[in-house]
């Protein structure tokens, strides 16, 4: 009988309850959307910040470059000593490449020549633009890339031959593409690591390793610590500008989302409260009658509490579905990629809406004060 009566309560007052349902559905849709956004924003921001380039650098330890060692040698590290351990602990979300720098001459102009794994440049720097073709082979010594500024200064284009000279040694390559990084990289020439090591006569030596870890600032810091532990003789340094910016932005977005969720919960509760206050007045006669029939106030209010509970759960469920669609759309608009709905948002939204509906049903407390004799007299 309990649920039968609750169902009839819902059916009998559907016109007025539609207002409460609309408030609950729209409130829960926005909350569900924001919760999905909150859970997805970390991943989305990580992806966005990953495009800013490497976020960890491994270089020679400052102790190694202490006075007494030669300046050229002090900055060099044995590539196997770093790359083998890094390769072991790097997961699929980590891109990395070794770098060796040499200042060489070309066309009587000094230029920074960077030796690296050319096939990894694109993964390390997803925002770089390239006019021409990326180099897909790590062993290809015949091709190279040139920064936009360097290419302009040296009048080079894709397909041109580049000749570089370091001391008495020379190296040649064909320019595969012109890099546009928007940073100092545009002044450099990118060649095969082995070719540069041969040019500088430092086989097996590099200056540093850059890593691009696709993860949250916290995970990046943890990974950097792990790298430090694995490579105690080297300096492992997160590029703080990127990771801190991501962390700060994430914290601000989260604060905004939480504030909005609270605001919407309060507004939804107020809307339900207004509806329930009106409904409580309308139901005074029913409550008076039920009391006269021997209904205790707890049993009578139990009907109404169950009614708003059902409303809250129903509104929360429908809203959660709409919210998933909303977050999908917001992800597309804000980040350019859809945010997949998270299953855990559904029960949280339904629970929140049920609680809000119950809180909004507080005016029903006044029904406890109903005097059946007065109500039944029509006063």
């Amino acid at each position, binding site marked *: *009988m*309990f649920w*039968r*009566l609750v169902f*009839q*309560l819902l*059916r*009998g*007052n559907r016109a007025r309850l539609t207002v409460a349902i609309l408030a609950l559905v729209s409130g829960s849709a926005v909350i569900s959307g924001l919760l999905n956004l909150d859970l997805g924003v970390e991943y989305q921001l990580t992806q966005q910040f990953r495009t800013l380039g490497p976020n960890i650098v491994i270089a020679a330890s400052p102790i190694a470059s202490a006075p007494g060692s030669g300046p050229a040698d002090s900055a060099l590290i044995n590539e196997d000593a770093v790359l083998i351990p890094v390769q072991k602990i790097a997961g699929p979300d980590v891109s990395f490449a070794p770098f060796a720098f040499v200042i060489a001459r070309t066309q009587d102009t000094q230029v920074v020549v960077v030796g690296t794994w050319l096939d990894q440049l694109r993964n390390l720097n997803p925002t770089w633009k390239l006019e021409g073709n990326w180099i897909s082979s790590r062993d290809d010594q015949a091709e190279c890339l040139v920064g936009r500024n360097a290419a302009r200064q040296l009048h080079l284009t894709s397909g041109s031959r580049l000749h570089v000279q370091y001391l008495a040694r020379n190296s040649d390559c064909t320019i595969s593409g012109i890099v546009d990084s928007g940073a100092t990289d545009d002044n450099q020439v990118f060649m095969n690591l082995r070719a540069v090591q041969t040019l500088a006569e430092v086989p097996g030596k590099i200056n540093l390793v850059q890593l691009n870890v696709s993860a949250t600032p916290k995970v990046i810091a943890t990974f950097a610590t792990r790298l430090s532990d694995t490579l105690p003789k080297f300096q492992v340094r997160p590029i703080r500008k990127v990771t801190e910016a991501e962390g700060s932005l994430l914290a601000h977005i989260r604060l905004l989302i939480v504030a909005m969720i609270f605001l919407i919960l309060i507004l939804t509760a107020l809307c339900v409260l207004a509806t329930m206050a009106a409904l409580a007045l309308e139901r005074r*006669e*029913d409550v008076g*009658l*039920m*009391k*006269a*029939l*021997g*209904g*205790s106030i707890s*049993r009578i209010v139990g009907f109404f509490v169950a009614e708003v509970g059902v409303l809250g759960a129903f509104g929360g469920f429908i809203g959660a579905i709409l919210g998933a669609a909303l977050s999908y759309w917001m992800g597309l608009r804000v980040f350019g990629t859809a945010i997949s709905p998270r299953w855990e948002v559904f029960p949280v939204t339904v629970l929140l809406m049920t609680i809000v509906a119950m809180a909004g049903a507080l005016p029903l407390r006044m029904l406890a004060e109903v*005097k*059946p*004799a007065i109500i*039944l*007299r*029509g006063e």
Partner: protein
Amino acid sequence: MCALDGVSFGIEEGEWIAIMGPSGSGKTTLINILGGLETPTSGKAIVDGVDVGRLDEGGLTRFRAEKIGFVFQQFHLVSYLTAIENVMLAQYFHSTTDEKEAQQALERVGLADRLEHLPSQMSGGEQQRVAVARALINHPKLILADEPTGNLDEANEKIVIDLLRELHAERRTILMVTHAPSIGSLADRRIDFSHGHVVPSIPALTPGRP
């Protein structure tokens, strides 16, 4: 202001009593006190051995559920519940619901074909018969009927009066408020009220027992 003053009378089990008097004479207040809807400021109202005035809120709730069956002038059915659900509501507050028993109660008052109708889909007489079925469903010790025919046409009035006669024949105790002398005359006994006092006893005009 005193709604009832110096009112004292007793009712035997199975009696049908008509309470009569002008408006404002205290008839409804009496019904409300006996039904546990109002509490007397002084004096005693004892129903089936229970001093109603000494019961707390919970005790009054149980008292109303177990001992009293109300029939109101305005019917007072829950508008969004069907006829059978209105009857079952009283069962629910009493103990547990029994749909078959509720159906039989409605069949008894001639509403077998109106079980799933809402009050708005029924005539006044039919609604009052639902109220009678609801009042009877928990086998109360005392049926309190406040102007049960006050809002009915002649045909429906007759149906409701016939129902009260049947209940009386089954030795149910009925206390009925009415303005109509013709209906009051059907009772075993008539108690007249005026300004909150019982007017000295007048014997029933005609024998109430069928």
